[in-house]
């Protein structure tokens, strides 16, 4: 995990290495200052150094503090560069990796969790990293440096630290070890509470219409109270560090004054030295505290790091099999040869079973079937959004796996059931289909998709801003823009997955007519709920529970296929 993340440092590695080195400079200065101070007291004030010596040493101390200040500021600057650069690289790697994900990779993680990984988890890791490079070296060096200085001043006195340091260290380790699971438990409860707030927001109309406000409030209070208890249980341990630290520090100081005082009485120790020893007590114990904080911070952010590495390590399951394949899709024939498919990749849980059919280039094919009959699954195999479990999908004479994904998908346009527009203007969205299209071509595609008229009715026409997710247009309008976007690709195969559900039947048939007349060469595959959308197709596939239940023209199916006839009847009843 560490190795993987360290690899993300890239060009910012030098700052990541320089930061702790510079921090050492700051530490050396900080550790030396009390030592010089002891010289002022013992040689300047008590000894015969006099004012000249005192001033000289004082200026030296000021100089040291200023040097230390520069080191510290420089270290902070470098740490910011390293930390932010590191975060940038992680974010970019994650984003690029997700871009390469196949549909099943995306399904596995869910979009919400991917977003969290790219945002919150990256921020947590970045903060932990910055703390690590700034303090991770500084704290142990401060500890060691201050210990060395105190041993230099007096070995006898410094033995006090041999008791104090382990006592505090053990206490800190015990506290953070016990606290960690409690924090984890708290965060889990906290997430649960937030999830239920979210649920209430989404469901507010349900809550209100069933008059369940009090019921929800009671539920929430229970959750909020368990969060409170969990937080108390976790944090009460952590806040113990302060009094324990104070206790150890105070006892150490008193011990040092006692032993040091006796040494002074015996005449082999000076008051200035005693004073500097007291300074070292603070430095040594504070750096221990700092170490325990780093420790806790890393433990907390470990979960975030894990989630990031999980994405980076994810095996992309659909890749170019022949990376240098120059093969292009030459026509729109589609052949399914004994295709089996399963989302879980297991034989005993097939979503599509033994599919066999042939579509000639330029044909229009309708697909009909109830909810969960795997219509969408079927068409997603054509642009190789998923790989078959067994059997073969053949496009333009070659297996889909023989093409590069780019070459294949260039020629297979698909309007998804859950289709999305992106923030930006209508024109920008249309250009996803073809970056180089001329304005005339854009308008032409929109005319075919019956979108031109309403687009022109907007004050800004094709420059209308759609807002995030295309919120500024209605459902039916959105679907037509999506169809125009797909038409712009001028594909060999065009797949419409229930893409006109919000469009009225008249417009729907106009779209089909336009496609019929202008896309003669293109194979058109249409999934629909409405039987009127598919009844004119050359052939219709009836799917039932992942199996082919019928394949033929409307008239043939009306004769032979029970399901088809049932669907037809359920929609036509009203007219008779």
């Amino acid at each position, binding site marked *: 995990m560490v190795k993987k993340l360290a690899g993300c440092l890239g060009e910012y590695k030098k700052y990541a290495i320089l930061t702790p080195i510079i921090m050492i400079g700051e530490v050396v200065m900080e550790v030396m200052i009390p030592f010089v101070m002891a010289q002022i007291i013992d040689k300047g004030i008590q000894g015969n150094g006099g004012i000249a010596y005192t001033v000289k040493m004082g200026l030296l101390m000021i100089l040291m503090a200023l040097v230390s200040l520069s080191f*510290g500021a420089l270290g902070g600057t470098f740490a910011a560069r390293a930390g932010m650069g590191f975060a940038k690289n992680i974010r970019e790697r994650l984003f690029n990796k997700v871009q390469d994900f196949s549909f099943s990779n995306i399904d596995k993680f869910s979009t919400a969790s991917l977003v969290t990984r790219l945002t919150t988890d990256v921020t947590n890791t970045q903060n932990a990293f910055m703390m690590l490079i700034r303090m991770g070296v500084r704290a142990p060096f401060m500890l060691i440096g201050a210990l060395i200085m105190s041993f230099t001043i007096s070995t006898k006195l410094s033995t006090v630290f041999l008791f104090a340091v382990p006592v505090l260290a053990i206490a800190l380790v015990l506290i953070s070890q016990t606290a960690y699971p409690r924090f984890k438990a708290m965060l889990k409860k906290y997430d649960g509470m937030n999830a239920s707030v979210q649920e209430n927001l989404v469901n507010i109309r349900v809550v209100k219409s069933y008059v369940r406000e009090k019921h929800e409030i009671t539920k929430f209070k229970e959750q909020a109270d368990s969060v409170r208890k969990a937080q108390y249980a976790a944090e009460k341990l952590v806040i113990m560090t302060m009094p324990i630290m104070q206790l150890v520090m105070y006892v150490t100081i008193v011990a040092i004054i006692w032993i040091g005082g006796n040494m002074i009485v015996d005449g082999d120790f000076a008051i200035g030295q005693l004073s500097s020893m007291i300074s070292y007590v603070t430095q040594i114990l504070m750096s221990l505290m700092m170490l325990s904080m780093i420790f806790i911070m890393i433990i907390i952010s470990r979960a975030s790091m894990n989630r990031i590495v999980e994405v980076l390590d994810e095996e992309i399951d659909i890749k170019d099999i022949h990376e240098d394949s120059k093969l292009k899709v030459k026509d729109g024939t589609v052949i399914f040869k004994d295709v089996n498919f399963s989302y879980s990749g297991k034989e005993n849980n097939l979503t599509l079973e033994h599919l066999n059919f042939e579509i000639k280039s330029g044909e229009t094919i309708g697909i009909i079937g109830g909810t969960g009959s795997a219509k969408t699954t079927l068409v997603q195999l054509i642009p190789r959004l998923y790989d078959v479990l067994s059997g073969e999908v053949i496009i333009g004479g070659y297996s889909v796996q023989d093409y590069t994904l780019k070459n294949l998908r260039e020629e297979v346009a698909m309007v998804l059931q859950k289709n999305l527009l992106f923030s930006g203007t209508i024109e920008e969205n249309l250009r996803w289909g073809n970056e180089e299209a001329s304005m005339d071509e854009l308008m032409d595609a929109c005319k075919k998709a019956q979108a031109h008229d309403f687009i022109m009715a907007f004050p800004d026409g094709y420059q209308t801003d759609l807002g995030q997710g295309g919120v500024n247009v209605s459902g039916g309008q959105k679907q037509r823009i999506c169809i125009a976007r797909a038409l712009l690709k001028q594909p060999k195969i065009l797949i419409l997955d229930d893409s006109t559900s919000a469009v009225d039947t008249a417009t729907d048939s106009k779209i089909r007519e336009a496609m019929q007349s202008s896309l003669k060469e293109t194979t058109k595959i249409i999934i629909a709920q409405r039987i009127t959308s598919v009844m004119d197709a050359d052939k219709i596939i009836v799917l039932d529970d992942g199996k082919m239940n019928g394949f033929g023209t409307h008239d043939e199916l009306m004769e032979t296929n029970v399901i088809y006839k049932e669907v037809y009847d359920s929609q036509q009843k009203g007219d008779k």
Partner: protein
Amino acid sequence: MPGPGSHGKGMIPSKPKNTKSTIRRLLTYLAEDKVLLLFVGIGILLSSSVQIIGTSMLKKVIDQYLFPMAGNYNVALMQGFIKTLMIMLFFYLVGSISTFFYSRIMLRISTKTLYRIRTQMFEKMETLPIKFFDTHTHGELMSRYTNDTDAIREMLSNSVANFFSSAVTVIGVFSMMLLYSWQLTIVVIVMLFIMLNVVKTIGGKSGNFFKKQQQELGAVNGYIEEMIEGQKVVKVFCHEEASKQKFAQLNENLRVASTNANTFANILMPIMGNLSHVLYAITAMVGGVLAILGQISLGTVVAFLQYTRNFSQPITQISQQFNSVLSALAGAERIFLLIDEQPEADDGYVTLVNAFIDENGMIRETKERTGIWAWKHPHKEDGSITYTKVEGKVEFDRVIFGYDEKKTVLNDISLYANPGEKIAFVGSTGAGKTTITNLINRFYDVPDGRIRYDGININKIKKEDLRRSLSIVLQDTHLFTGTVMENIRYGKLDATDEEVIGAAKLANAHSFIKHLPDGYQTMLTSDGTNLSQGQRQLIAIARAAVADPPVLILDEATSSIDTRTESLIEKGMDSLMKGRTVFVIAHRLSTVRNSHAIIVLENGEIIERGSHTDLMSLTGKYYQLYTGLFELS
């Protein structure tokens, strides 16, 4: 210990607008535990003064015992030395113990405060009118429970006690300094002035950079969200390279902005820390000179050095927490804004009661569940009470309504639904269909007397009782985390298992529920993502069925169920609708054909009404819609 993602540095230092009143209000939350807070105050006072006293005893030790005893032992002095050390140890012990207690008590207060803020916010949220939810995004409201409460949490656990103890320390140390040496105090004041200026300059600059960072972060996160949400579209259009490129650009902008912001945040601490070293050095030098000149004693110098440490530490700390305190206050302000929202108004006094019909044919109130409901209508003028049987008669009398004053959504709507009738609304999006149903259950209010339920003005009916007498199945079915059983039971909390299963059977949901891994005990995750949209709608229909209300509103309730399944559940739907007044909004016109009346709406006005046959023979809008000549989107 800070939780993940809750570090003061990373937060937006968005400025609170009304700092004083926000602080005052936060304090009132803390002050609810006055006695505990008093203990905290005493604890802080003890633990801070112990530090000051300890240092002053150090001076005593040096000047009175060690200096005279250096190299020549004296029994009396030695006894004094030991005694002083014992007192010092005692004080220190008291200090540590009081730190322990006050921080423990403070934690209790702060967790309780958070609990209170959260529950108050939630309680208020549940009472707010639908209009409020229309005008606020979920993200915006959620961030009050997450970011804003997190910021307050951090401030309560880190900054509040710290602030008081720092104040006590600074005041205490400053008075001791003045007592010991006015010359050295001047040095300290000058340095303090410089340090505060540094904080102000750097703080101000970093504030601007943080704002910039926050903007860039917003841009990057927005792009991430949009692209990942639309990842499947990206794949289908081979748009990966283009989105990688755009992301790289945004990401680099963020890096530059956040490097700037964090540089300032990062250098503040070493600058402050080392300036305090400079202060220490100057004190040592000037103090040394003064001591040599005999102006002050050696112990004073040593104690003073210790004091400069005690003095600059809290100032550095406060300056570090400044940003996080600001964002906590801004968060608190947003939370208070929510708590101060006006709740849904309800001055209804007509209530829903269980009733039975006595031997004289009179409606009488009872506590038992009889299956018969009545409106209990007290009359203010003469104090009499009348009972009206709940039947489900709904009348609209020339209703005019708009969500805001400028735009009228419903114009002059009059309609009449008799008990047991099925009324359908047809029209394109924005025609006002859903608005009509939202007025019946008073999600939105219309002026007096325009809508009557069983002859009673609905504004006189207590909102919760009105809603209890109606059930609504919405187009977007959202379920709750819990078992299938619990979700259906939501319609009637005291329903038995048999009642729940009966309702599921009625909605034709029983057969698929039986096949779920754990049947009715299957846990549904938030939003029921492990069910198909159609299955979720069936559960929502069962939920409405178990509530057994006289009036039922179906707002596109079967839109996600394919036509074949829909015809399968038609029987169930029919028996569900039997004997109830039903309002139906449906996209598929085949489902509304058998209504008693179909109302065609356009731009908030009724343009046609009548039965299916009436309207078809009219060959108007309905005819066009039905035959697919006109768009319905």
